[in-house]
């Protein structure tokens, strides 16, 4: 290959293009991450910082509330994605069969995704209201008044009730993505399956789902990550209660950092550091589990 002057990389331009992004990233993402780890080894008070070694970590290991929050968050991140993606897949398949009014349905189902968690939270607090909320009103209207509950007031039901809310929110999103994936399937392969004596069920099992497997797994991981981060919804509805049944790592951290009797930021930083490692670890495990062994070229 002939070396020409065009092969020299325009370093000046490259640096110029990347500099603003990396300045922002370093100052407001990379540095804070490092600072958080640094905090975790200290007692960080408004006017002083004392090195305490791994004392915070030791305390964390014993912290019942933290581990309860971790459990709650993992339950959320484990159950919600499965529910969201399964229901979304069924809905997408229903729309895929060219039901009339497809565009309308698609747009209507996507709306919950657009709303701020704050708005969604308030609405569902109302829906879950014991006296006049839509949930109980519906049950009573159907003659099932015995089943009316204090949905987010009951420690047993609060977490499932919130999981229901996020499912309500994100199923529409997953449905739209799956629909796009379904439409991108090569129609000739599906026709070949038709000629190979596949009815709707067989086409689904043997051809369609295997071909959209990558998207399904992707959505599961995305949903998992989202649930690990969840804060807004809990803060607006239950603030972690009742009795820490909906306490997530993010709400617990917020409370320790900004609403605790001591003003120590070191301990919450420890929570953040440990949680960071846990989340990254979980995502790595999931990605490894779900890795696509072959390229599906079509």
């Amino acid at each position, binding site marked *: 290959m002939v070396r020409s002057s065009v092969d020299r990389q325009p370093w000046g*331009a490259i640096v110029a293009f*990347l500099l603003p992004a990396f300045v922002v990233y370093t100052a407001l993402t990379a540095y*804070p991450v490092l600072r958080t780890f640094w905090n975790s080894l200290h007692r960080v008070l408004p006017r002083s910082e004392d090195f305490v070694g791994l004392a915070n970590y030791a305390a964390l290991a014993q912290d019942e509330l933290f581990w309860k929050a971790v459990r709650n968050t993992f339950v959320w991140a484990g159950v919600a994605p499965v529910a969201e993606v399964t229901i979304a897949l069924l809905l997408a398949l229903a729309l895929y069969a060219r039901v009339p009014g497809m565009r309308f349905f698609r747009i209507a189902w996507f709306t919950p995704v657009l709303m701020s968690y704050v*708005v969604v939270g308030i609405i569902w607090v109302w829906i879950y209201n014991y006296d006049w909320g839509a949930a109980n009103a519906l049950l009573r209207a159907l003659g099932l008044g015995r089943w009316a509950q204090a949905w987010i007031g009951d420690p047993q039901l609060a977490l499932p009730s919130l999981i229901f809310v996020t499912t309500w929110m994100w199923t529409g999103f997953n449905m739209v993505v799956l629909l796009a994936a379904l439409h991108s399937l090569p129609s000739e392969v599906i026709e070949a399956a038709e000629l190979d004596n596949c009815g709707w069920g067989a086409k689904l099992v043997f051809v369609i789902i295997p071909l959209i497997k990558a998207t399904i797994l992707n959505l599961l991981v995305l949903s998992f990550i989202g649930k690990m*981060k969840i804060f807004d919804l809990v803060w607006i509805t239950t603030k972690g209660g009742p009795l820490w049944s909906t306490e997530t790592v993010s709400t617990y951290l917020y409370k320790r950092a900004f609403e605790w009797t001591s003003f120590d930021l070191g301990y919450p930083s420890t929570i953040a550091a440990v949680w960071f490692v846990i989340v990254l670890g979980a995502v790595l495990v999931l990605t490894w589990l779900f890795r696509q062994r072959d390229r599906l070229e079509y």
Partner: protein
Amino acid sequence: MRLSGDALLRGLVLLVLALYTAFAAGPFLWVATMSVRTTTEISLDHYAWPEIWHWEKFPQAWFNSNYSVYFENSLLVVLAAVAILTVVGSMAAHCFARYRFRLNRLLYFVIFSAIIFPPQITIIALFQILVQYKLYNSLLGLTAVYVAVQLPLTVYILESFFARIPSDLFDAARMDGYPEWQIFWKVSLPIAAPAIATTVILNTILLWNEFLYAVVLITDEAKRTLPLGIQRFMGDQLEDVGMIATGLMIAIVPVVLIYAFFSEKLIQGMTAGAVK
């Protein structure tokens, strides 16, 4: 008989779809109706259709409870952040996509991996940093944080799009003697306009609704963004369901407008990268 079995199945599917639509859109419809009824009317029957349409509640909510302030703050922060994000993000994305240099993939990975960082890992330190530099409780500080928060996703979406532009166009521009900056400005940006529009819409919606960073970094009433304002509103009004509903509607309206005009782009934007 084959024909009626088919029709029955179709009917069932349609029913399920209709029920789900009611499920998905119902709550909003409910809030919308409550937003034009007074709290007294609502407490009598929570689910009635409005008889008198109390449009005056909207100006009431707007002026009487600082709503205009919250709205303006959100507007400023979001517009500024999205603008900066678009410029900074597209520059970085263009660079990653079009130039080959040893550190390219490493640096891209560094930024891209931040997408999975839980906000907790940075929030405390950001609080400390903003306080230290006197940017706590300031819209400027919040804007800067928002840019950092959305940067990885923006770069990710734009990079894959920039990479798809055929390199022949760039070669042609180089042969025509265009300097690198002009190539970015005149070739990459115009062609990537759809993707950029997508990220603009996406970032706008995400930042408009953002709550966690705002609640940590802003406590001053005058600097509250809309989500904070609504939370405060709810705290203040607690029993005044009617007023809160009106407040919610005001918050929802801009998003609905964007959705009404750009639903295709919006859906595309928010689902970008999820389809494999």
